[in-house]
């Protein structure tokens, strides 16, 4: 197995993992601070992608569209929080699951009504070609940019959470909500802002992944479940955990798509090997998730000490 192949697959896993991190970061904050299971997080990702497609069409600039989509999705997220989700903080988890599941249904059809089932979104033309990283490895320049953006956001989040006052409030809220309220933090405002921020992160992921995947109704469902796996593995409320978890899941997905089927093709017919490989990788991820829930329910990097 060549070094180039390993490097390329590592880059692929990194790219997928970093985008998953963007979703997981927002989700883990909401879950950690507000103790709310938010199934509608994937819908914010979808809205972000659709907004980016529309803005790209209107302005002609991909990057401007991403920024506008972030702002738009943050507004949608905060509006959602103020109107509906706020009422769910005090309710039990069943109510939260059902209400946010209902929001998924409403969001899917709402998007279908406004935009139709799918809209096109293309990468900026300058990034349509490859970049030679090594002789023999021309990697897609757009994917490299995705990695760069993902890393930049990760660094920015780290700085925000550990070095700023807001970040400190967020961490306080995550580790002990009652104490934070007692210390005079305006919890309501904090929650709304955190939610809007998480929504903006979703929009980045949605806009950046749009050209590689497809901007379509229902695109949030499959990635949402992976985001939950990530935050369970990483630790609810921990951004560091979300990063580690996302990279683990991203790598596992790539290995499952490429290396395992190649291995299985040695002794299974190609159709069977190709079906079993990704299935095995996914099963392993869920086994890992179940094992962590069982032995270390707080995840690898618990936020609550």
């Amino acid at each position: 197995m060549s070094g180039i192949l390993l490097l390329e697959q590592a880059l692929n896993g990194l790219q997928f993992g970093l985008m998953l991190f963007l979703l997981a970061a927002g989700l883990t904050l909401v879950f950690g601070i507000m103790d709310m299971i938010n199934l509608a997080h994937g819908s914010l990702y979808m809205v972000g992608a659709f907004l980016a497609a529309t803005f790209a069409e209107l302005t002609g600039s991909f990057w401007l569209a991403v920024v506008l989509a972030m702002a738009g999705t943050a507004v949608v997220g905060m509006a959602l929080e103020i109107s509906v989700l706020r009422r769910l903080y005090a309710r039990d988890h069943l109510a939260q699951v059902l209400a946010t599941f209902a929001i998924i249904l409403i969001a899917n059809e709402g998007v279908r009504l406004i935009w139709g089932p799918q809209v096109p979104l293309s990468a900026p033309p300058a990034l349509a070609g490859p970049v030679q990283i090594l002789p023999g490895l021309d990697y897609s320049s757009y994917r490299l940019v995705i990695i760069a953006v993902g890393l930049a956001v990760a660094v920015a989040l780290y700085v925000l959470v550990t070095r700023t006052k807001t970040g400190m409030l967020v961490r306080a809220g995550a580790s002990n909500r009652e104490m934070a309220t007692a210390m005079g933090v305006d919890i309501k405002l904090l929650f709304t802002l955190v939610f809007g921020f998480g929504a903006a992160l979703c929009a980045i992921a949605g806009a950046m992944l749009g050209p590689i995947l497809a901007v379509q109704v229902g695109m949030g469902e499959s990635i949402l479940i992976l985001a939950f796996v990530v935050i369970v593995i990483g630790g609810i409320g921990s951004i560091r955990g979300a990063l580690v978890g996302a990279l683990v899941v991203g790598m596992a997905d790539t290995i499952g798509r490429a290396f395992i089927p190649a291995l299985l093709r040695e002794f299974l017919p190609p159709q069977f090997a190709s079906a079993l490989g990704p299935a095995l990788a996914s099963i392993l991820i869920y086994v890992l998730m179940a094992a962590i829930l069982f032995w270390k329910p707080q995840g690898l990097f618990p936020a609550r000490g």
Partner: protein
Amino acid sequence: MRRWTLLAVLALAVAFPLVARPLGWEFYVGFASRIMIYALAASSLNLILGYGGMLSFGHAAFVGAGAYVVGILMAEGVASAWVSWPLAVAAAGALAAAVGAVSLRTRGVYFIMITLAFAQMIYYIAVGMKAYGGEEGLNLPARSSVGFGLDLKDDATFYYVVLGVLIAALYAMHRLARARFGRVIEAIRENETRMEAIGFATHRYKLVCFALGGAVAGLSGALLANQNSYVNPNLLYWTQSGSLMIMVILGGVGALYGGLLGAIALLVLEEVFSVYTIHWQLGVGAILLAIVLYAPQGLAGLLARRRDG
């Protein structure tokens, strides 16, 4: 009053296929069978969720397991319902027992997540089994054979079999709820610590409840495989678990007929809305949201209130 309603509904249910043919409603006989099968699945979840208070987010896996048992046996040449249906129940129950044994050691949101994890694992096993269709699913060449000269291919015959199974299952659950087991489970739901302190082996009771719910789900899966003449991994996907939970809450968590009412409500709503618009999910979502926010007791709660008031 209660008994009158029950008899009227039963009479309607029995009469329905007979009046359907002359009225040109044959399609709706199949539709009604579908509703009853989902009512069974939702009722089995109600046992776990409503009575047991266990928020299982992986129930679709047990329904799917039962469906796949029937599908796989049929692919291997075993078509008799007397073999495959009990096996479906046993397999789903055993699976639920295994999942429950691990999951019930966790609490709260971790329990929700771990049941989801197990369900997804089983989903991916189904996807990976290319020999039995994998993602493309498995076509069943015929419905299960029950003997007695009855052919389940006939929609009306199948309808009556499903009706019989549903009535039997609901009656059994009704008796279970009234028996000691049912009352212990409800007490555990209300205050587990107290029951433990009194000396009940709460974990064992919850596990049995979970396994029973899974077993009945397997039965509904077996019927579903017959209804569709087709099984595919989608039956096990997490959004299907979500749909079942919607039915339970629409109908009324914990009420005996909650599963039935919820299945009727959801499937009829879908059917009615979809005649007028392809965006029917918007209506269903809005109604569900409204119920969660304003009428947490669901339809059963509304009916109970009307009866008292």
